[in-house]
């Protein structure tokens, strides 16, 4: 039942109707009649909204006298509003145009803010974006620091003669070994280029020179586990954050695309 409702929500026609209804709410101001008409009806719902708005600010209901004044003010505003529209005052006012645009964008996004996506929606999102959530590769390696210039021939010869590799490394505070280190930890220590240059297929032999911000290194990879995709339970909050953010942006784009599709736009000098 719920999933059918959700698939409905993805239908362009439903979007169109929703956007139409929202447009009507913004421009039509239900309860007062067509903005360009000459009849104004302030119904009970509208009066309740006026009173509630007062109460939100002042933390008490308006008195009868205050309410009368508020209603008078509302009618006055409504008349001015319609006359201003009639005069086209909204069209050359950049402030009003910007505000209306941002209201439209907000309306398109707002539904996502309160929506509680269920696991199947989030699992789908995770399946569609595995790269975002992939757990870092984990590696164990030794490195011989060759210094800034990176002369490797003598070092390689010494390695073949069985010299302890740790003694061959130039003096450095860089660790000779990193065990069970995530790729991001390796990047943090040696830089992104270094982590990216390690050949994950070469296990057990000295590879390189591999360049880092510090200079050149010979690297011996001892173990390498490629990153796995985590389960939804591991990353649920992240997935929900990302889904919400992306879905709001997508709804806004879709709502606009729908509106845009009803317009024919011609820009002089461009095809």
């Amino acid at each position, binding site marked *: 039942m719920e999933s059918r409702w959700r698939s409905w929500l993805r239908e362009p026609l439903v979007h169109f109707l929703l956007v139409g209804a929202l447009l009507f709410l913004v421009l039509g101001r239900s309860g007062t009649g067509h903005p360009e008409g000459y009849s104004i009806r302030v119904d009970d719902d509208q009066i309740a909204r006026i009173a509630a*708005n007062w109460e*939100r*600010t*002042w*933390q008490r209901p308006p008195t009868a006298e205050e309410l009368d004044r508020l209603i008078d003010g509302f009618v006055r505003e409504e008349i001015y509003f319609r006359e201003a529209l009639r005069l086209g005052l909204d069209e050359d006012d*950049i*402030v009003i145009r*910007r*505000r209306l645009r941002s209201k439209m964008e907000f309306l398109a996004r707002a539904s996502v803010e309160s929506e509680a996506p269920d696991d199947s929606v989030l699992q789908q999102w995770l399946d569609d974006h595995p790269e975002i959530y992939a757990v870092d590769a*984990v590696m164990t390696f030794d490195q011989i620091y060759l210094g*800034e210039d990176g002369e490797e021939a003598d070092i390689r010869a010494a390695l073949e003669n069985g010299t302890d590799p740790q003694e061959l490394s130039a*003096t*450095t*505070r*860089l660790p000779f070994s990193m065990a*069970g*280190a*995530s790729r*991001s*930890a390796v*990047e*943090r*220590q*040696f*830089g*992104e280029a*270094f982590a990216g240059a390690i050949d994950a297929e070469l296990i057990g032999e000295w590879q390189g020179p591999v360049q*880092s*911000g*510090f*200079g050149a290194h010979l690297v011996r990879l001892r173990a390498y586990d490629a990153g796995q995709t985590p389960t939804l339970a591991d990353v649920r*909050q*992240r997935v*929900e*954050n990302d889904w919400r*953010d992306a879905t709001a942006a997508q709804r806004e784009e879709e709502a606009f695309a729908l509106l845009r599709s009803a317009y024919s736009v011609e820009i002089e000098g461009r095809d």
Partner: protein
Amino acid sequence: MMKSRFHKGGGMLALSAMLLSACQSGERAPTPEELAMSPDGGTTACPSQVLWGDTHLHTSNSVDAVFNGVRLTAEDALRFARGDEVRSTTGLDAQLSRPLDFLVVSDHAEVIGIGRRIADGDPALISDPTVRRWHEMMNESYAQSTRAARELIVGYAQDTLPEILADPEIARETITSTWAEHVETVERYNDPGTFTSFIGYEYTSMPTGNNLHRVVMYRDGLDVFGETLPFPANQSQDPEDLWAYLAAYEERTGGRAMAIPHNANLSNGLMFAMEDFEGNALTRDYAERRQRWEPIVEVTQFKGDGEAHPSLSPDDEFADFGNTGWDTANLDASIPKEPGMFEGEYARAALQRGLLLESLLGVNPFQFGMIGATDSHTALATGDEDNYFGKFVSDEPNATRAAHSIGASIRGRLGWQYLAGGYAGVWAGANSRAAIFDAMARREVYATTGPRMTVRLFAGWDLEDADLSADPCTLYDRAVPMGGNLSGTGDAPRLLVTAMMDPEGANLDRVQIVKGWLDSDGELQEQVYDIAWGDADTRSVDDDGRVAPVGNTVDLEAATYENSIGDPELSAVWTDPDFDPAERAFYYVRVIEIPTPRWPVYDRLRFGAEIAEGTELVSQERAYSSPVWYSPEA
């Protein structure tokens, strides 16, 4: 959902009363976060890794940020800091070269969220003609919006704001709803082990435009923090009242909080004054509370660097970093500097004053560690010269920002004088609120002006050269790390210092020890020692022990530099040659990079930006460790 957690009926007074009458809470069990795994999969007590973050960032919930045009939210800020690409307010795609590990979104507490309501045209607010005019300016253009921001900041500094902005009912409703939404967002993005987001805000005290601002940050999650509201400076400009508020918070909830002063350089001598806010002499009680609530200070950020000033340290050739334009007047440039103010503004002088005060009061009120931050008002925590997104939206990347007065900068401060920002390096055992906050509380942190160099400092009596290659975790048993205290009677302590370049950045020129002490005549002294330097085979040391300049490889046309000078890492075990066991002293490390291009150089390459005469184009970026303090054994 969150809103129901807040008392609808109570105002600030009711809340304060509630805090004051709260009873002591008992011990609580560690939260899962406190037991969180480190990023590499193991829990560890040793602070084995340096984590990078920004404790000072503004979004559209800050009234000055939104007036200056920003429309990005805390959520955008958190996504950006953890490494995502985010569309900036002016429509540029923005991303950090590397993610940060933590972020404190620290919007101004003073009627937090009200600027967005003015931008949105809240009827209750735009009934005031001035606010209405600002609303229209905010929606007209960035230039107009910036003008409105300037009026607002001057109005706040000079206490001439429209009265409606102080209306208690409007303020209460705005604050509670904005804050509830904010805390909920921060909570959703806290991801222990990967990325930590802290609940925090900025307390914006600035009597007559003198900057006494503090960032307030909490160690706690929503389960402990609950319905707590921020403490705004319009309740009290006296930081001691903020401390009382934080004390009440801790007592009521069992949580933890701290305040982080910043931009002492714009306080006209007030931040580290020798007297309290009311003008009374400092007391031991004051010193104890200050040390308790303010264990660290933000010493470098967009609005200048506050480590040292050439007029206070004439023998220090590196003391002039990031001072230009910021050493002429207070925050809103309403009161010019006068002789005697710098001593209460710059960190080194404040640390010296702390020694003097300790000798008088028995407790050092200015025993603080040092961090860097951005103070960005674009919601984008950028700290790199080649990725500077500006202090305000009006100076997001464009061709004119370097040469002109920007954002709400006032009277004579030019775009290029803004620094590209700093970050905090934190030695922590895990990426979690608890681990990072606790490292800050014990001052095991350091400041950088942007680059992520790795800096360690240990001090003790039996450290040897061989310890340079030891696992640092083994040193804690016989030495104190940065931020620690030593006391003794005889030999000089030995300082073990290691510094490694940012692996994505520039080589290091030199490593220095900055010593401050109170001599036997009661005079405060300072000395800078070069203890390790790059290209050591070719660089000479003069008779005063100063190492020759490292050179300069910057190509101003191409906006590049070469790591052909300097060294990738420098280290030393050093003993103070002038040590006197009877004199109180502090020692901190300053690491200096080789020269690199400043952000206007990248602007000229990318946008053909106009560069005004006098613009500083090259700088030597740096890191400042928290000090280690020595005192004679009682």
